[in-house]
């Protein structure tokens, strides 16, 4: 068989390594064969390419050192940053907070990790576990995930010396420019050079090619040039509306902390693409970020009307029901997830909790056993914490204490465990010890109000008793 045809075939079969090998051989024979060169580039790119629409994550530096957001202290309900101020204690839907300090969501996704700490200091203090690993900048966030690719294939030096490329030349060759851009963007993760290439290429096609507009926007966005990105996306959107473009443009607005603008954009998008699940998911996420949970659930419910197997929607509605005192309904959603084949510690943990609060005690322990057997590292701490919660519920403080200590042994930064442990210790009369637990809890998670309250309560009691 012709080796080039074979390589093409292998690429289609997504057997990239073999495809690359063949291409390398071919290139050794004839290093000027552009077709093989492009094929190898595509294979290398496809090896590491991920759908980056949702992979965006805002780094700490971007949040605190860039001042692209217009309103510094926007009205609550109009900004993702001030969303937490919205939560009042009387709120029915008051949810516990995740490690990063945001109200708990049904699913973990990029962005749901985003800390809501108001100061840089507070964010840096947020425990850095696998759950809350936050990149320092968005550039390094990508490098973290994708940049490893450039090491993988560097057996005999890099495939393409990007710094020595003549961008204008390659930009002019339409067959080469796009694969080359993707290679630089995804494989080499060299945004700056990718941008150079894109600028040259878009000039050559007289600023008419929508593909280059999107790529330019992507580069600008990653470089933090939000206004330039907005311009590119808007111009592309005018040319031809697409779901991807709406999502990317909305990301820019979210980066600018204008959730309502993003929401208006999506409303507009729904006119072009009625009942589009991806767009409605984004809308639901925006409301969740704004802490407007009823609206968020409304959209998730609409999503389920369209796509009954949307895991994110099911999980989020489940959580909503659980925290609005309807554990039995929440249970049904989690059962649905189980039916769909999801099989992990978090799900069994949630099932266990729902069973407990729905008073189906026979299932509780079985669920938690499964959860423990499936749990890995930090998950286990959460599971033990929840088991401790059940133990407190049934009045067995000894087991509860054991479980909490186990949780802390796995994850020494589990702030809520510290708090609960403090309560148990206090009930045993060890006031000093309890106080130190409350202190470490509040030091680890300044957004929790419980340890402060408990500490105050204990202090008051001690004073009161000593005065009597």
């Amino acid at each position, binding site marked *: 068989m012709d080796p080039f045809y074979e390589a093409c075939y292998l690429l289609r079969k997504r057997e990239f390594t073999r495809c690359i090998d063949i291409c390398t051989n071919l290139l050794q024979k004839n290093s000027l064969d552009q077709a093989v060169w492009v094929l190898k580039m595509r294979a290398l790119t496809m090896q590491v390419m991920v759908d980056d629409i949702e992979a965006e994550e805002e780094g700490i530096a971007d949040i605190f050192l860039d*001042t*692209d*957001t*217009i*309103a*510094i*202290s*926007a*009205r609550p309900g*109009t*900004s993702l940053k001030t969303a937490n101020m919205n939560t009042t204690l009387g709120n029915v839907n008051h949810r516990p907070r995740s490690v990063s300090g945001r109200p708990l969501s049904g699913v973990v996704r990029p962005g749901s990790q985003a800390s809501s700490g108001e100061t840089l200091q507070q964010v840096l203090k947020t425990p850095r576990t696998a759950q809350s690993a936050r990149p320092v900048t968005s550039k390094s966030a990508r490098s973290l995930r994708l940049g490893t690719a450039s090491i993988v294939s560097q057996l005999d030096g890099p495939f393409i010396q990007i710094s020595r490329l003549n961008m204008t030349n390659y930009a002019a060759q339409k067959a080469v420019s796009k694969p080359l851009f993707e290679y630089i963007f995804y494989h080499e993760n060299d945004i700056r050079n990718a941008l150079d290439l894109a600028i040259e290429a878009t000039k050559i096609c007289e600023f008419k090619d929508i593909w280059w507009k999107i790529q330019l926007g992507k580069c600008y966005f990653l470089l933090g040039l939000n*206004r330039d990105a*907005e*311009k590119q996306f808007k111009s592309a959107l005018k040319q031809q509306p697409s779901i991807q473009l709406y999502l990317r443009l909305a990301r820019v*607005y979210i980066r*600018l*902390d*204008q*959730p*309502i*603008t993003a929401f*208006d954009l999506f409303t507009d998008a729904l006119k072009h693409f009625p009942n589009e699940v991806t767009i409605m998911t984004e809308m639901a996420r925006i409301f969740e970020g704004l802490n407007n949970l009823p609206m968020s659930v409304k959209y998730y419910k609409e999503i389920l009307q369209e796509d009954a197997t949307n895991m994110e929607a099911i999980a989020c509605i489940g959580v909503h029901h659980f925290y609005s005192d309807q554990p039995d309904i929440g249970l049904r959603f989690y059962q649905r997830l189980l039916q769909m084949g999801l099989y992990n510690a978090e799900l069994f943990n949630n099932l266990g909790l729902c069973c407990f609060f729905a008073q189906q005690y026979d299932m509780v322990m079985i669920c938690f056993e499964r959860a423990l057997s499936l749990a890995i590292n930090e998950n286990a701490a959460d599971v033990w914490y929840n088991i401790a919660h059940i133990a407190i519920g049934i009045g067995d403080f000894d087991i509860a204490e054991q479980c909490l200590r186990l949780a802390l042994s796995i994850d020494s930064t589990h702030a809520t465990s510290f708090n609960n442990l403090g309560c148990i210790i206090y009930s045993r009369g060890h006031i000093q010890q309890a106080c130190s637990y409350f202190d470490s809890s509040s030091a680890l998670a300044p957004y929790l109000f419980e340890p402060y309250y408990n500490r105050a309560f204990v202090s008051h009691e001690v004073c009161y008793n000593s005065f009597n």
Partner: protein
Amino acid sequence: MSVPVFSFRIKYDILPGLVTVGKYDGSHSCLTAATTGAKILIHSPHRHNREISFLNVNESVTAIYAGRLKPDEDKDILIIGSPSTLLAYHVDNNSELFFKEVPDGVTAITIGNLEGYSNPLLIVGGNCSIQGFDWKGQDLYWTVTGDVVRSLALVDINQDNANELVVGSDDFEICIFKNDNLIHEMTETETVGFLVGYKETKFAYALSNGTVGMYEKLHRLWRVKSKNTVNCLGSYDLDGDGVDELITGWSNGKIDARNSKTGEIIFKDLFSNGIAGIVSGDYRRAGRNQLIVISCTGEIKGYDSTSLTQDLKVHSDLLRELFLKKQSLISEIKNYSMMDLLTPGIPANTKLVTDINASMNSNRFPYNHVLLSLSTNNATILRLATIFAEGIFEGETFVVHPPNKDVSSALDIALVPPKDVSLDIHIRAFVSNDVDCEQYHVFELTRQLPRFSMYLLVPYLGIEDPISYVTFHIVERIQRLNMWLSHSFLIPTEIPVKITENNDWRIGIKPLREDSSVVNIKCVLGTVTIITENMELAAEIIQSLANYLNIDKLDVS
């Protein structure tokens, strides 16, 4: 003096002129001002504990304005202009309506209705251009001006129930646009920094040299000049008579309110620093607006009609006028009685003779100028003369005061008008018998300088094949052309007009301002030809001629 209805201070510096007030939630007024570090400060008195909030702009703010832009919403939109961008921002929703790159910069903003547009239009003035946007950011209106636009106002000047756009710019012009047609132009003496529109065809203006004035339709009602500069201009009905007063904030911290008809000061107050902005908004939830004044250091005071002290109102025009009259009469009597004692008066038939001529540079005045010669008709001397004319001198007034030994009965003054506009010169000459005399007779007179005073009329030079020229056809008698000439130019004793036997009319005009060649005008059988390379001058000559001859329409080629 005055009593503010409220007074407080915010600890931020405010940039002068960049202050506005908006009802961002539809009901509560919020003072909005640009502060240092490319930030915008919003002060919302109704929000307890969180009264002050900031907006990041990231670029230096050149203009801000708040107004209703969205037709279906009563919430104000904040418009922020920077040297290259324009942002329409919905403060209440923390979302932007649109963000635009404006290469001409944004130097003035207003929002209002223009004829032919159903929705409110955001009008933005930049470098030589005016653009209008709707709330979606669509570019609907566009026109050009002569220079950087400094101020915009929407006024119904010609009472046709539709707003005209009044534009003040760096080239000293106030232009009035009807849609995108220029319908009138007024020339001022400095950059027109501020414009405020009033009801009933009036608008106020302020120049960067400290002049404040008021126009009604196309006529100036009054104007005053101060040595301080105007920092901001506003309008508010302070005395409750239903007519807005003109409120002026000065760079030295003074604030005064003037009657819009007469320019008479009815109210004043003093801040410790320059005034940054004057707005009117309801800051006490009283159901009506107060006048809010903010200084550059963040001092805020509010006034309304109760701030005016009562007795000041009672002393109305009449009393004050009579008092002034009495004062001047008393001083006059005093003067006469003193003069009788000291020196004999000047001869009764003394007259002041003035003569105005355009002239080339001479030994005394080494530049081309308009020579104003004053002389008396007898042996009396001219001790000094003050000349008051707009825009010719720095500070508007010029005093000629020769040393004692040079005092004579004649005085020559060189004027160099910088622009081609007709001017009134007010002359005051101090005449007496003797140099050491302490009492002088003051002669006051007003002379008009024609529009083209800086041009010398010379005989026509026949250029047979001109490089560039303008021709048009008029149906007028030659005499009318001569009249126009004597109206617009300084005519020497003998007019060098050449009228040939078959009624050809020829004249040459030499510009004195720059060293360019003579402009030749000839009129042969009703066809006027202006031969010049300076197209601007040709245009001005045609304009003036058309004005004088009352020609509405003229085909020019």
